[in-house]
């Protein structure tokens, strides 16, 4: 009996080891790059694709990650602090030694859509789980565009990852669990704009990489699609129809917010500031309309604005209100206005601010403590810097202020605790 059991255990272990080995060797990986892509593009075809590629690359926001501030264009080097260590974006200029100059069309396609580069597996900081849904035509266009750039002789930086995360081949396991085999985004019966919006949202702009929470294996949790997630200590908000409406957006305002980065709901901050800066401000009016229509689940953008009703104020204790009002008048009101109206072209309003309407108060609290640097927006708009008040306000004062602002203008329960503020310092 014991021997039979042992045999069974050994058999299971053997099969398990075989299966793990097969996964590790990539035998179970399925490329979504079709065989025709092995055929190189002609010089003529490459030339013809450059202009389209420039637009696709902007919509896919490639540049934001593949450059550093003041660094050589397309030469990579931007650090990504992950829970496992630091990885750096790579040189994707057409330099033959350091960049992708020696990559074939098919090699480029496999890197972008399968996450398997010429030199091994990519880490999923490169959003290939989303880019997998790109059309072959769009990937060709980006390839042609990148190959038309100036080669940059800039060496790639070495990642700092501990064992076993430093073994690129290990990504085969992640890919097995987290890569979908379906690559289509088109839904029959939905409008052209809605479908274009879905393609922009899911494939090109890869919105879900930040706005969809991640599961235990750090893959996108599809059951909570676009419902908001924590990212580098701030909240990437819920951008489903319900989430956008809660923040005070309607489809028209949201489309213009993606273009300008500024609306009554506030100004883009953190990573979304860069997304507007590098990407969405350049999207065509049709694409912005499509993206907004899709996120609001409409066949097309409506003609007129339909702003959602402002939230009902929630009562706070007299003590909280008195503390918060004193703080507000002392250090907030000169810029944000006594009534929270802000100053056009200078300071965002608070009375209609989306940050006050989020269930999680973290973004607001962080901004109160650390401030926001001056930011330039499209069309000569410029928001002045917001000072941080960590040195001037106690934890209690910040908690009171945050609770009062959120209750008054955001309709949120005054749930911020002193401990919560202390932990953010």
């Amino acid at each position, binding site marked *: 009996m014991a021997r039979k059991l042992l045999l069974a255990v050994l058999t299971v272990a053997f099969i398990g080891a075989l299966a793990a080995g097969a996964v590790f060797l990539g035998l179970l990986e399925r490329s979504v790059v079709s065989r025709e892509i092995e055929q190189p593009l002609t010089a003529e075809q490459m030339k013809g694709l450059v202009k389209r590629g420039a637009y696709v690359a902007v919509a896919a926001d490639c540049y934001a990650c593949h450059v550093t501030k003041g660094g050589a264009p397309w030469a990579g080097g931007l650090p990504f602090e992950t829970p496992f260590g630091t990885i750096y974006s790579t040189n994707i200029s057409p330099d033959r030694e350091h960049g992708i100059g020696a990559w074939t069309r098919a090699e480029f396609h496999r890197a972008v859509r399968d996450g398997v580069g010429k030199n091994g597996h990519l880490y999923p900081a490169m959003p290939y789980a989303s880019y997998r849904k790109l059309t072959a035509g769009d990937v060709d266009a980006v390839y042609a565009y990148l190959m038309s750039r100036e080669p940059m002789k800039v060496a790639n930086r070495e990642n700092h990852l501990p064992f076993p995360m430093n073994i690129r081949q290990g990504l085969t396991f992640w890919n097995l669990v987290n890569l979908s085999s379906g690559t289509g985004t088109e839904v029959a019966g939905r409008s052209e704009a809605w479908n274009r919006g879905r393609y922009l949202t899911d494939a090109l702009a890869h919105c879900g990489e930040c706005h969809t929470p991640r599961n235990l294996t750090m893959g996108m949790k599809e059951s909570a699609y676009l419902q908001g997630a924590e990212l580098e200590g701030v909240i990437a908000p819920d951008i489903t129809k319900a989430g956008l409406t809660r923040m005070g957006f309607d489809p028209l305002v949201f489309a213009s917010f993606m273009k300008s980065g500024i609306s009554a709901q506030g100004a883009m901050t953190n990573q979304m500031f860069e997304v507007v800066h590098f990407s969405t401000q350049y999207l065509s009016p049709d694409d912005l309309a499509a993206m907004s229509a899709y996120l609001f689940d409409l066949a097309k953008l409506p003609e007129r604005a339909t702003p959602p009703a402002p939230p009902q104020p929630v009562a706070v204790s007299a003590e909280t209100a008195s503390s918060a009002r*004193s703080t507000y*008048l*002392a*250090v907030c*009101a*000169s*810029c944000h206005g*006594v009534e929270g109206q802000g100053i056009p072209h*200078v*300071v965002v309003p608070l009375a209609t601010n989306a940050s006050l309407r989020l269930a999680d108060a973290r973004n607001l609290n962080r901004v109160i403590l650390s401030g926001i640097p001056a930011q330039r927006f499209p069309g000569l708009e410029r928001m*002045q*810097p917001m*000072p941080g008040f960590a*040195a001037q306000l106690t934890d209690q004062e910040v908690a009171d202020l945050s609770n009062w602002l959120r209750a008054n203008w955001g309709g949120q329960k005054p749930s911020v605790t002193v401990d919560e503020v202390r932990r953010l310092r």
Partner: protein
Amino acid sequence: MTIATRTLSLTINDEAVGPIDVPETMMMQDFLYEYLNLTGSRMGCGQGICHACTVIVEKGDGSLEEMRTCITGAHWFAGRKVRTVEGHAKRDANGAITQLSPVQQAFIEHFSFQCGYCTPGFVTGATVLLDQLKRNPVRREALEGVISEALDRHICRCTGYVRYFEAVRDLVLRTPGLVKA
């Protein structure tokens, strides 16, 4: 319509001020100008950018902090000790200036300013920096960076900062105890 007021008491340039009724939405700069005739702190941008309006707040432990009066409400200063640019020099019994502060003297010696609009802010900022260096001296090689960082936020539009910078560096180097060996 009446403007809601609140009673304010504070110390300015070592003198007790108040209790006095002050509109609760009034900025400190307006309070200094309209109630106390202390017009040395300059209104520049009115947005907290240029730092021409700053004053010193002396904290409980004696350390100094710079605050912008154009964007900070008068009532924030309730119970606090404030030093405006009028309170830096030594004065005689009649209030006439007998000796400038070391920072003010250094700015004069170096011809640091031209129109002088930003000078109250620079006097305030440099004084706070000297106080910080007294508490935490820096290594000589770090000094230039420390001065730049401390005064970077002060905006000047005519002399181009160099003479302010040289005055502060000169003063720091000849004041014992601010720079570590």
